[in-house]
């Protein structure tokens, strides 16, 4: 059963075509990778799905409901959560507060409730704090809960972004280069984390990644973009040997050599 469907998505920035006619169908509970050389339009593609950019044409359907045209916070409410290529944490806030912000849409507290500190709001707050703590335990950052987010190491910041995205209780999670800047051990831990959370949180994962070892290991389906267009899609083993993909990565002529 497909959960997310993208139809003929095109994005133009003036004369520059960032994405041209990209379509994809993502199965529920699957891990899909979007790969391609730098500048292929992968992040633009993510930004359109999450509402940061509006597509020039095309449609995005989440569970058969059109979500393009919605604002980012509305998309988040529909159940799509994401992490960022260039880490975007709330730097001056503590680690646990970062996760609590992720729960924003699920907290019912309103102006009056907060002003009068109603019992229901207090309970909700306590409950969400515990939940945030559990999410931090899940990604292995529980001991750093009161640390400022900007003081975390690079790998820890990446994991915190994942915890924050999970806090929004998404149906689909988009990970934009989650392993960038990580050492092999951290990458391995991350691979395990992504595999595990897919089952435990009942998630559909879409990720952009340059680390081919990681991509081949965890993804069930791969979409390859180059110059804004989809040049190939399929199972990892098919993509690995696809001449078009090799050409996009290594240049023409590489097919014959390798």
């Amino acid at each position: 059963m497909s959960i997310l469907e993208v139809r003929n998505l095109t994005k133009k920035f003036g004369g520059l075509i960032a994405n041209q006619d990209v379509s994809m169908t993502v199965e529920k509970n699957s891990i899909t990778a979007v790969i391609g050389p730098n500048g292929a339009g992968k992040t633009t593609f993510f930004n359109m799905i999450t509402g940061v950019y509006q597509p020039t044409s095309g449609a995005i359907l989440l569970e058969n409901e059109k979500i393009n045209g919605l604002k980012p916070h509305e998309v988040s409410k529909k159940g799509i959560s994401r992490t960022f290529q260039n880490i975007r944490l709330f730097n001056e806030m503590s680690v646990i507060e970062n996760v609590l912000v992720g729960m924003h849409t699920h907290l019912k507290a309103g102006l009056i409730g907060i002003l009068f500190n109603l019992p229901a709001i207090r309970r909700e707050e306590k409950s969400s704090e515990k939940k945030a703590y559990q999410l931090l335990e899940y990604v292995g950052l529980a001991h750093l809960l009161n640390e400022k987010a900007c003081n975390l190491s690079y790998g820890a910041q990446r994991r915190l972004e994942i915890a924050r995205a999970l806090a929004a209780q998404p149906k689909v999670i988009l990970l934009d280069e989650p392993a960038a800047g990580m050492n092999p051990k951290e990458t391995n831990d991350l691979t395990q984390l992504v595999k595990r959370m897919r089952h435990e949180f009942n998630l559909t994962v879409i990720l952009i990644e340059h680390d081919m070892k990681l991509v081949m290991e965890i993804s069930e389906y791969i979409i390859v973009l180059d110059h804004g267009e989809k040049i190939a899609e399929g199972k990892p083993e098919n993509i690995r040997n696809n001449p078009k993909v090799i050409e996009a990565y290594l240049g023409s002529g590489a097919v014959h050599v390798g």
Partner: protein
Amino acid sequence: MKSLWNKYKQNKLAQGIFLLIYIGITSLSLFMAQRSVTAFLLLLSSLLLLYFTNFKNLTKWLIAGIVLVFLLPFTASNGDAFQSYMEVATLVGIYISMALGLNIVVGMAGLLDLGFVAFFAVGAYTYGIFSTAQAANFMPFGTFPLSGESFWIFILIGCFVAALFGILLGIPVLRVKGDYLAIVTLGFGEIIRIIFNNLDRPINITNGAMGIPSVTPPRLFGVDFLFPSQFYYIVLVILLFTIFTVRRFEHSKIGRSWKAVRENEIAAQSMGVPLVRTKLMAFAIGASFSGMMGVVFAAKQAFVDPTSFTLLESITILVMVLLGGMGSVPGVVLGAAVMTILNLQVLTEVSNWLNQLSLSGVLSIPDALSPAKMQRLIFGLLLILFALYRPKGLLPAKNRVYDENVLKEGSIDPDLGFTPEQTQNENLDTKEV
């Protein structure tokens, strides 16, 4: 020496004794002295001392309450300078409240607002117009001036009108960011002032540059509020309300979303924080405190005119926030108190002292160099010094510290805020990290 200091820092009893002696001496000297600004300021600074003790929050509030409600007015009442002390204390309260409001906009939500005094003006004029015969010029019904009893309702009305103006300002302004936002808000502040200045024609609403004289004093149970010593208590109550409200918001969903917007707009949006709504809420709530204090200010001065609401006022409030520490509630309280006292007391006192010196022929200082006239220079220097050596302010903002042990135990209420289909709670308990 250092170990002694460390011991002191841990010992509540020592702190309590020291605080008691300090309050005792300063209040006694304030009581004995006929006119001693120093004693007055020292007694006020006992609150700062109190802030740094290890007492429980409730104890701190109780002690602060005793000092502010009983001790300060009582000990100051002995001298002939009683009303001038109370005037200073009242203004300190008004400015703290405004600075706390601006702190929400600038410190928490990160929206630089250079026209904040406009909301204060809105509050002041709201009460000023309706508590004098001014309103009869344009209101088709009702008798004006309204009685002094209406003042208490007008505190609320001032709050709502200012919040409304906050939203009205916010809607067009929030399309711009950073420096542009600062300029637009600056323009808004000036526009409001100029409108009040010119709204005496075609219908005389604000009485223009002449201002609105003889604003009806507040009245409660037949007692008119005329003196600063009476307004002091009104201000104290509103200030208390402001501080509690700000603290509530700070550690709530709304406060977190303000900070998230300040830290990273795109990430905040992607986490489900609605950008426009959050920013508008910051503007409205920040403005509402200012509006309330505007009403009190109008009643206290018994006179409203546009010159009280200049750009310099907006900048003074901003300096209070920067000096105290952006986003830090205790910091902003301290910053506002320091700035107001510096402005009203210290500079004037030093000027007087220098004047006396030059009169007695010891020194000769030209009138143009009197410290009271160098307010802007001194504010400017302070800002530069703080930007260089303490960019986070006197008491920098701190994040709330969560207790790991509390978070570990206990279960999550399943029907609060989380969708029922979720299965992760059970999974979380069994996973290994």
